[in-house]
């Protein structure tokens, strides 16, 4: 019967337990508050119902009571706030060596590119017990990547990357929903998250793999002629990209920005907006010349120049249990 009458979503990520624990706490707290108020109302309503000849007793109010029932709820609220903030902070802070999956949303489908090279549409295969980081963008309107079983949701915006991460704990197939209304087939923009045991995942991954995404990016990098300016030495017209990713970059206007995925992306599509100190704004935009998936491949390539994310991926696979620590219920 519970197949079509679920009262609780599947719990399949490290975040799920944290969110559920807070949720249960909130149900208890608000249940108690409701009980308190409702009991008082019912008792008063019954005890003080109108009787002929009995007058109401006029009471002005009470400052100590007002203070009490302002301070106590405020204290309870602050506990909820801090707990909620801790859960949120955890869910927004991806572990360092997470595996990257690039997500491109469009009306009305999900396109996913694994850093290892596999590409999928409306389904995402991932191994159990691995930190997976999603680097997401949209080709058109705002979408939202929502996996109820992971208690994870992040809006996917056009024109920039947003990120999210999860650590699946249980093999199985779970819903992927678009949670931000995006037009006609919004409710059809759904897919499957397939969490597999590591061995099965290896088998799936090796089937028809075309090589890592960064290799695709490298090829594209050459084809587009990027290498003419962005040389591996420091003699090019553009800054070298070796070891740039994740490092602070000094801009011409004095600002210092971190070379993250959004920065690389912006530098490809709108190169004039952030000029590296000491260089001239000579790079043409690649807006319209490369699609979102190609941008992702280029970003993956630039990242690979700073310590090879492919290698990181392998370490993450070799020690699947390591990052799970500290993810227990607070």
């Amino acid at each position: 019967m519970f197949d079509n009458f679920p009262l609780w979503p599947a719990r399949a990520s490290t975040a799920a337990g944290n969110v559920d624990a807070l949720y249960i706490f909130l149900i208890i707290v608000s249940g108690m508050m409701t009980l308190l108020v409702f009991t008082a109302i019912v008792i008063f309503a019954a005890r003080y119902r109108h009787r002929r000849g009995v007058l109401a007793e006029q009471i002005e109010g009470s400052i100590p009571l007002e203070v009490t029932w302002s301070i106590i709820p405020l204290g309870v609220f602050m506990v909820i706030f801090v707990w909620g903030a801790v859960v949120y902070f955890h869910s927004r802070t991806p572990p360092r060596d997470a595996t990257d999956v690039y997500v491109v949303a469009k009306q009305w489908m999900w396109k996913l590119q694994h850093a290892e090279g596999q590409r999928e549409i409306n389904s995402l295969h991932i191994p159990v017990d691995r930190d997976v980081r999603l680097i997401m963008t949209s080709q058109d309107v705002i979408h939202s990547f929502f996996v109820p079983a992971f208690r994870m949701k992040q809006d996917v915006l056009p024109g920039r990357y947003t990120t999210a991460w999860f650590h699946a704990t249980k093999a199985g197939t779970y819903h992927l929903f678009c949670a931000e209304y995006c037009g006609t087939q919004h409710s059809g923009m759904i897919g499957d998250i397939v969490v597999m045991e590591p061995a099965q995942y290896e088998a799936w991954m090796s089937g028809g793999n075309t090589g890592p995404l960064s290799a695709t990016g490298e090829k594209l990098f050459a084809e587009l002629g990027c290498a003419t300016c962005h040389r591996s030495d420091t003699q090019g017209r553009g800054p070298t990209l070796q070891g740039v990713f994740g490092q602070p970059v000094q801009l011409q206007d004095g600002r210092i920005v971190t070379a993250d995925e959004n920065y690389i992306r912006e530098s490809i599509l709108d190169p004039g907006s952030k000029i590296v100190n000491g260089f001239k704004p000579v790079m043409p935009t690649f807006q319209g010349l490369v699609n979102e998936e190609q941008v992702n491949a280029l970003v993956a390539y630039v990242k690979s120049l700073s310590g090879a994310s492919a290698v990181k991926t392998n370490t993450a696979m070799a020690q699947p249990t390591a990052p799970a620590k500290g993810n227990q219920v607070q």
Partner: protein
Amino acid sequence: MSMATPIVTPVEREDYLNKEYGVASWLLTTDHKRIALLYLISITFFFFIGGFFALLIRLELLTPAGDLVQADTYNKLFTMHGQVMVFFFLIPSIPAVLGNFLIPMMIGAKDLAFPRINLLSWYLYIIAGIMMLHCILTGGVDTGWTFYTPFSTAFSNTKVIEAGLAIFVSGFSSILTGLNFVVTIHRMRAPGMTWSRLPLFVWSHYATSIIQILGTPVIAITLVLVVAERALHLGIFDPKLGGDPLLFQHLFWFYSHPAVYIMILPSMGVVSEVIACFSRKRIFGYHFVALSSLAIAVFGFLVWAHHMFVAGISVYAALVFSLLSYSVAVPSAVKVFNWTATLYKGSIHYDAPMLYAFGFLGLFTMGGLTGLFLAALGIDVHVTDTYFVVAHFHYIMVGGALMGYLGGLHFWWPKISGRLYPEGWARLAALIVFVGFNLTFFPQFILGYVGMPRRYYQYPGEFQVLNVMSTAGATVLGIGYLLPMIYFLWSMRYGKPAPDNPWKAAGLEWQTQSPPTTFNFEKEPVVTWEAYNYDEIDTGHKEEVKVVG
């Protein structure tokens, strides 16, 4: 309270209803009471349009597959349900009908400060309403009531500009009503009607008016920007044109979160009046209840980004807005505790308005507490944009606001119409609305946590049972809302004539005749008593007032 009516005098008294007849005497009236009735008729009309859309939505969701209407039609239905209910029913509901009717009388004034502007605001509402109807009838709009960009400015091929302009115009109606109330409450109080003798209904409308005046211009500007981007391709929100889609969300929620308080604060005012009257008591902690309305109005402006925790704002912005959101929860809780405490040692009557007030307390408490869930960052990530949010805001905006509206209509119906409504039917309707409401929306909390996203035309089969429950509840709720309309209409012709003060209620509005004359009072009243002086009314003299604690 028993409805034993005194012997009715057949002498026809002149009142605001029978003073003049004819269409012009209504359409050109500057009487705040007639304008209130014009609003009553027009918002009831839009309520049933919005309700009809809701009915179709619930019927579509009876089965997982999309089978009743097309996907695009469904998207238009929930969009226009939201727009019609929010901008053309809930926002004007209590202020423009009950507030308009009662505020001048409650403070002992002949009319609002600007009677012609009052009429103008109704005309603006009607113009906006006609624009909205035109939009609906010529194809409608499918952006969601939230108009999120860049979908609304670059992708939707429906009547976005028409809908946006209709809401733009309706905003001016709302601003003018708020302005009129603020000036009236400041300048038109009768001698002796000090700030701390004001009925809490007036206090809550004062707070509401502040939001209407300060918040509404922002949604107006935002909608103009949407129109500019859509029609002229100015890059404001669309990243392809160099804009920022999150800017839209900030601007939109800067108004639309406080707008929730435009809907709920007046309802709280009604509940204060009703609970005081039917407990025969002054409100416990009058000043705290009054000030909490202002606190809600002010803090309400500081929490908008809690609608955007997964939208792509920074972690630190999210922390701040989560913290601030709890600041609104405190005054709301204070109100609930004070109303509950008012019942203590009261002399409680169970007439229909009081049943609605109890219903309000129940639904608002649940709506408020589930707001705590949503303000908690970690929970919000999971439940935002799901049915949990849908359930939460319906508990507040329909459970709370509409319960108050209906309770208020029943309470003041004798004053408004000069007739008594049938008490038995009214109690039954209050019960049906409460039960139907919970049946409709409680399952949606579970549905949301289990993971069903909102605005889904079709859904995975496992969500069906909860959806069927919700649709079944909506049917009951629909009956509950239809009943009052039927017996109110019935009572206008067949109801017993109402005495001037059928509830023996405090408040200046009850000291004039039912229905009142055009200028409300024979001569300007002088107030020498405190608000809610039920001791004097019930015993003829002032009782000792206790301070407990």
